[in-house]
């Protein structure tokens, strides 16, 4: 179970990205995070695994206070939390397989990484994960030779390599066309339903929210303005989340 308690993030330039955000995610839930661009969705996701250090508040994962964790504890926490990014964030010049194997770094001894070595098990698991996302034959291609949708599938395979208990997906489909978007979302759905992995996914399109998520929270200017079932987002709520001038498109 993930508990976010009174989370606040103020950047050095004074921007308040998150203001007193609290919510709880039970294990196995598919949680959608919605809100305008700049409403704090990315900051929220990155504060959870401390890619961004929160200014105040606590993140508690299965009873462990992540915000107070030492570097080593943080490493052990992060390796159980996969992350998927809007811009895929693959290392372009590396092979697809190496990109997937990078998901094992949290489990690998740094000295072994120095000589670029992974265990045999890791390599076979990586190939199996690529199989799962349908890219087995691309394992030895360079990452930048792949199309956007393929790159995002490699990103998912990398997250799966971590054997995650939770996946943080930061607008995973915002850079993809609607068809690809659904295909990527189905992968996340399968991971959530088959493997019981908790998914926190920030999304732009409400139809995706309706279709895939169990629950939605909404941020507006860093504040939590909605927490409930996707079906509860009616026109009133919509205006509240996105502002009075907003119009529904999808």
């Amino acid at each position: 179970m993930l508990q976010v308690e009174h989370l606040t993030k103020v950047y050095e330039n004074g921007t308040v990205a998150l203001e007193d955000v609290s919510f709880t995610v039970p294990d196995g839930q598919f949680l959608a995070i919605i809100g305008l661009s700049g409403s704090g969705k990315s900051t929220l996701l990155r504060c959870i695994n401390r890619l961004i250090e929160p200014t105040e508040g606590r993140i508690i994962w299965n009873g462990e206070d992540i915000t107070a964790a030492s570097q080593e504890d943080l490493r052990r926490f992060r390796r159980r939390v996969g992350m998927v990014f809007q811009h895929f964030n693959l290392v372009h010049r590396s092979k697809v397989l190496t990109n997937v194997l990078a998901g094992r770094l949290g489990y690998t001894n740094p000295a072994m990484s120095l000589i670029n070595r992974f265990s045999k098990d890791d390599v076979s698991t990586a190939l199996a994960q690529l199989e799962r996302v349908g890219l087995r034959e691309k394992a030895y291609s360079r990452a930048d030779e792949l199309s956007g949708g393929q790159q995002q599938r490699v990103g998912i395979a990398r997250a799966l390599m971590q054997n995650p208990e939770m996946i943080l997906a930061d607008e995973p489909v915002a850079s993809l066309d609607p068809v690809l978007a659904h295909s990527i979302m189905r992968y996340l759905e399968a991971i959530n339903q088959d493997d019981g992995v908790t998914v926190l996914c920030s999304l732009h399109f409400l139809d995706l929210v309706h279709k895939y998520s169990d629950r939605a929270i909404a941020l507006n200017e860093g504040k939590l303005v909605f927490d409930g079932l996707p079906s509860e987002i009616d026109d009133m709520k919509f205006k509240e989340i996105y502002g009075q001038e907003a119009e529904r498109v999808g």
Partner: protein
Amino acid sequence: MADIRERTDAELDTEPPSGPPPDKPDAARRRRRPFVIALGIVISVVIYALAFEHTQVDLTQITSETRQASLQRILRALAQPDLVTYDTREDVTEVEIAIPCGPEVTPNPNVVIEPSCGDPGDTVTITGSGFDPREFVELRFVPDTEFDITLRLASVNADSDGRFQVEVVLPDRTSDQVQSVRAVTNEPIGTWRNRVEVFTDANENGVEDDPILGEEGIHTFEVAGNPDVPAVALINPAGETTDFVTTGESFEAVAGVSRGQVAIPIDEERPDTGLRIIGIDAAGGDLSVTIEGPPGFDMSNWRAAAYDGATGEPGATTYISDTIRLSPRISETARITVDKILETVFLALVATTAGLLVAVPLSFIAARNIMRDISITVTNLVLILIAVPLGAGLGILAARAARGVVTPIADNTPALFGALALAAILAYLAARAALPTVEDHVPTRAERLRRALLLIVAGALGLVGLLVLSLLFQAIGTAARSALGWFGFIGSFFAALGEIFDVAFVVIAALATAGVFAQLASKLGYAIRSRMPRPVIRTLNVVLGGLAGALWAMLVGQVIDWFYQIGEFRTVVLIPAMVGAVVGVLIALRGMQKGEVKIGLSIYYAARTVFNTLRSIEPLVMAIVFVVWVGAGPFAGSLALALHTAAALAKLYSEQVESISTGPIEAVRATGANRLQTIIYSVVPQIVPPYISFTMYRWDINVRMSTILGFVGGGGIGSILQQNINLLQYRAAAVQMLAIAIVVATMDWASSRLRERYV
């Protein structure tokens, strides 16, 4: 001027109205504008006038006749680089002269002195005829002494009819004997135009023989020396051995022209290659060799080499006939130039490699995006500041002790091999035991301790291995230097590598121990912070801050003392310690308000400052310091260039690190990778191509720079170029300039091609 101004104004007026609305200056500013422009013009005129004054711009120098002649001379010399050389033969015509008048002189019809006698200081006219058209004639006075000296009187070019006339002043050399004047000319032989020249008795056997093999097809000649088991090789004009025979058993020549070739017993069958040896007679003082060949065969430039069939060692080499055919050949200057240009390129290579090795690790600490986020608590900072010098000092002491232990077996190569193997195996085993491939559980405290100890043991063993390796390289290298003969330089290379490892061993030992101490200090800091109450931590911070400040200030004091030789305890120890302590306390107090110190940024700024300072000093200037330190030569040049390269590359590299995309870094960090892993898996793949590209570019620059390092004694081609310029040997200098141009252009082309491939 006015013309340009008008046009600019006109353009301003016709500015298209569609452009972005100009920022309208207010009326006052518009009125002031002409004055500002006028003032600007006046100031620039003054600046350029000063510049002309200081650069001594003087067009009369360029146009004056003597300067024109100088320019002509140097340009002509540059257009005729001294690349090929040919033989010349000195022709001497002697004519008698009497100083003062008295003895009878015999006239020479070719060179006439008028009058044929006179007192010192008199002017006489020397007229010559019968010389080659436009031939260069040097006139020298041969005084009546027992020494072989001549005095230069004049030099003159004959006219198109082969005549010359010149007035000379008689030297102050009086004698009651007849003295003489020599007209010396140098006839070119062996040029392309005049290629065949008969050298009578080129083989110095006292007989004049015909280079063309006679009717009977037999020729006999002598080779100096007479070994116990004689052997002779026949060498054709191209320098190849065509026949190699011995009167004894077959053997292989160990050196000389026929090195590596096998001499065959003289009576055995061998392929017919024109000339062949049919007899070796060792009866007389020297070897008498008889050869057989087709009648009419031209033996010019064929040589014979004597060998000792018992040892394979070469003896004398001689021409087999008296005639040799001379041809133009690569000049000595060209040979030296090739030698030196190779030195230049290698100098640049060594400097680039050394600079690269230093710059790669340093580039990361000079990259803002990597260093920005590194911050450290005050407790850790002060603890590390105290631990690092202690660790480094201890490391150096330990390294010295280790060297003392290993040195007794330095000459025992098998023992060194054994020690190396043992150290390597033990280090590997310790490292394997300390580092599990997969971290599947949280290690217990005992496990952590065991791993840390094993790692330290592995590191220490690795270092000992490095020390043994250095001794081994030195031993093997020194032995190989003499054993490898021609390839002895490889032995020297390994010996030098051994010495480098030896230095590296101490440096790495110091750094590693400092690193271990820093690690322990940060663990201690973490323990203190998590256990002690805040006030205790604060007090501790302040006390330790003062201590750390004092320690570092004392180190700085030692450096100052080294430079200025103050040698006074109060000035170099006490005062710095006190000042340092105060600064340390202040920093600790200030840092505590923020909680953490952005140590990364401080290191970043320090590194950048050092690189920029080093980069701004020309390698030429650095070379002067290194020449004083390690002596003139290419080594000084490579050190200077390496230092500059390290600074320049570190800056270029770090800019590449700063410009990488952050997405992959974020992604890799999110997987739980630590800092080292993040760098290896997300930073390194992004920076390798630009690193290669910049290294190539830098090598290109280094080749250019190394061509001039010789001007200050830094080795490379510059030294002989400067020498030739100073000796006014412009034709020789032209060869070096040509070589520089070719090499630099080639490097430029090659490096740009390679860079295209990698970026």
